[in-house]
């Protein structure tokens, strides 16, 4: 076991404790509506984590993380309706976005498309998916027995059931617990990846692509793999989201893609916990802003992003830990 791996178990154990505490506490104290809302937050947090990994450690600024999120949700809904059972739909909801990320990533990284161009292309792919899904209202657009529904999405997205037993639907509190476990697993996987040799090469590529290449690593392959892992996590997030709300084209929308980036940059680029905290804080803020009748939530979010870039370029968590460290020293 290498040294990096040893220091990884501590944070993972802490995260497990936090997840346990949340699973113990929230379902008992929250009302049903608030609990479903909390599940949405957790699914968003998984999404934030996926970009934190891809962007913060892989150095890949993906403006289209929402594409994988939406694909995960839609795959889950379509597969669950067709199978009548969600046991097979869940792995599909992870595999299809991962496959899409693999395909897209191949074109991007093997074409050696640099950061900014990459951002623009991922953004465009997301928008095209958004437009495509929006235009599927007619009955021609049916996969198996599942109509895609165009602008309205698929309102009858079925909730999860016990694996193998399609009559036993999970209750909202069980889905919440599952989502928290999903978030914890994604965090643990990300931590373990980063502690491994592979993860350290990924970070090296981010720090200096040319140097990593000269050391003999195939930069394109490392980027492609981490991008695919991020796509799979975003797909999982989409699956949980589809469970609490329902799938609709807005999952692909620009405002989702934008929000994910905002969570990561406000929470702290280059950390895993920061974006999760940033996501949950900003979700609460957005919900609160939505209740204001005078101010448009987009205005609040946009202003926060501009201010965060100008004043807190490192993000919330690194700024706070930096302040604490400075306080310790004096």
């Amino acid at each position, binding site marked *: 076991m290498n040294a990096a791996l040893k220091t990884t178990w501590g944070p993972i154990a802490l995260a497990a404790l936090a997840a346990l505490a949340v699973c113990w506490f929230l379902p008992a104290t929250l009302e049903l509506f608030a609990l479903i809302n909390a599940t949405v937050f957790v699914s968003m947090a998984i999404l934030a984590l996926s970009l934190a990994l891809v962007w913060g450690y892989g150095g890949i*600024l993906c403006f289209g993380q929402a594409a994988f999120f939406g694909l995960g949700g839609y795959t889950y809904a379509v597969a669950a309706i067709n199978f009548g059972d969600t046991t097979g739909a869940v792995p599909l909801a992870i595999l299809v976005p991962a496959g899409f990320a693999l395909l897209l990533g191949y*074109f991007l990284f*093997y*074409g*050696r*498309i*640099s*950061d*900014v*161009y990459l*951002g*623009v*292309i991922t*953004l*465009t*792919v997301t*928008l*095209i998916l958004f*437009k*495509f899904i929006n*235009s599927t209202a007619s009955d021609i657009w049916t996969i198996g027995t599942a109509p895609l529904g165009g602008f309205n999405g698929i309102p009858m997205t079925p909730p999860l059931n016990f694996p193998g037993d399609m009559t036993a639907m999970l209750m909202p509190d069980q889905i919440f617990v599952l989502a928290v476990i999903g978030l914890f697993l994604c965090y643990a996987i990300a931590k373990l990846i980063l502690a491994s040799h592979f993860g350290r090469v990924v970070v090296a590529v981010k720090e200096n692509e040319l140097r990593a290449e000269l050391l003999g690593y195939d930069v394109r392959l490392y980027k492609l793999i981490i991008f695919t892992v991020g796509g799979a996590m975003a797909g999982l997030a989409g699956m949980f989201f589809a469970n609490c709300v329902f799938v609709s084209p807005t999952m692909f929308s*620009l*405002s989702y893609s*934008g929000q994910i*980036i*905002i969570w990561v*940059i406000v929470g702290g680029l280059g950390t895993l916990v920061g974006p999760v905290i940033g996501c949950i804080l900003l979700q609460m803020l957005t919900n609160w802003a939505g209740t204001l009748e*005078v*101010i*448009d*939530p*987009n*205005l*609040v*979010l*946009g*202003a*926060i*992003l*501009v*201010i*965060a*870039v*100008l004043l807190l*370029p490192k993000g919330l968590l690194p700024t706070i830990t930096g302040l604490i460290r400075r306080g310790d020293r004096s």
Partner: protein
Amino acid sequence: MDLALIVLLQIVTSIAMLALISLGLAVIFGMMRVINLAHGEFLMLGAYAAILATGHGVNLWVSMLLVAPVSVAIVGVVVERLIIRRLYGRMIDTMLATWGLSLALIGLVTMILGNTNTGFSAPLGSIAIGGFRMSGYELFLILFTAVLLAVVFVVFRFTRLGLIARGTMQNPDMAAALGIAPSTVYAVTFAVGAALSGLAGALIAPLAGVVPTMGTAYIAKAFITVITGGAAILAGTISASGLLGAVNTLGSFLATPVLGEVALLAAAIVLLRLLPRGITGRFLKGSL
């Protein structure tokens, strides 16, 4: 025969539209290496400026060709002073800040003007071509875009202002040593880019619905055009919009408009896979 002519005109219209909505972005990106993600909202502000001006009794042409670019240029100057100036050389931070700006502008306009679809009808009636009719306004757009591209070319190539701008783009330190303030040049360039975007927004307003979120519909196309075009402002915009506009229209004509857009994107991705620096990174190097 008439059908072929009308399809050809549709293709040229779509090329002109693409060039029109991309030009402002191309000027800002080509000159300053700043990716302005609020470009779509500059288009939207231009469209609203024209609508508000005509609503207050200003002549339609004056409000489209004068009020819209001037008011968006003013917004551009303010944005450059407050945000862009602090982030020069930090491409990704600039992208994020302008994205924030884009969200904020959508929110602000929704708050002030409401989330309703407004617009004005296209002037100039329609023209008969054989058994088909084509809107005269679309023909005007084609001509206007050609004139606009020519004007931009002449300004950059033959005037002192253009010389200063190109010099600063190539080597800001040298330009500063020769007594030119690069920051002023950047501010003016950004304002010009914003003005072009505002103008484009006002011009496409009669053809598209005007809503606070209209920018998102155009920003992707404008970006893909500019990136596919590469570094050269005019040659890149013209070649990329020519190629992508043709693909888009043919796709829409043969299948559906959505598939036309998908074809546009696919063409752009394949092109970037083959030419990562865009069309003018390989061909027409060193052109304007």
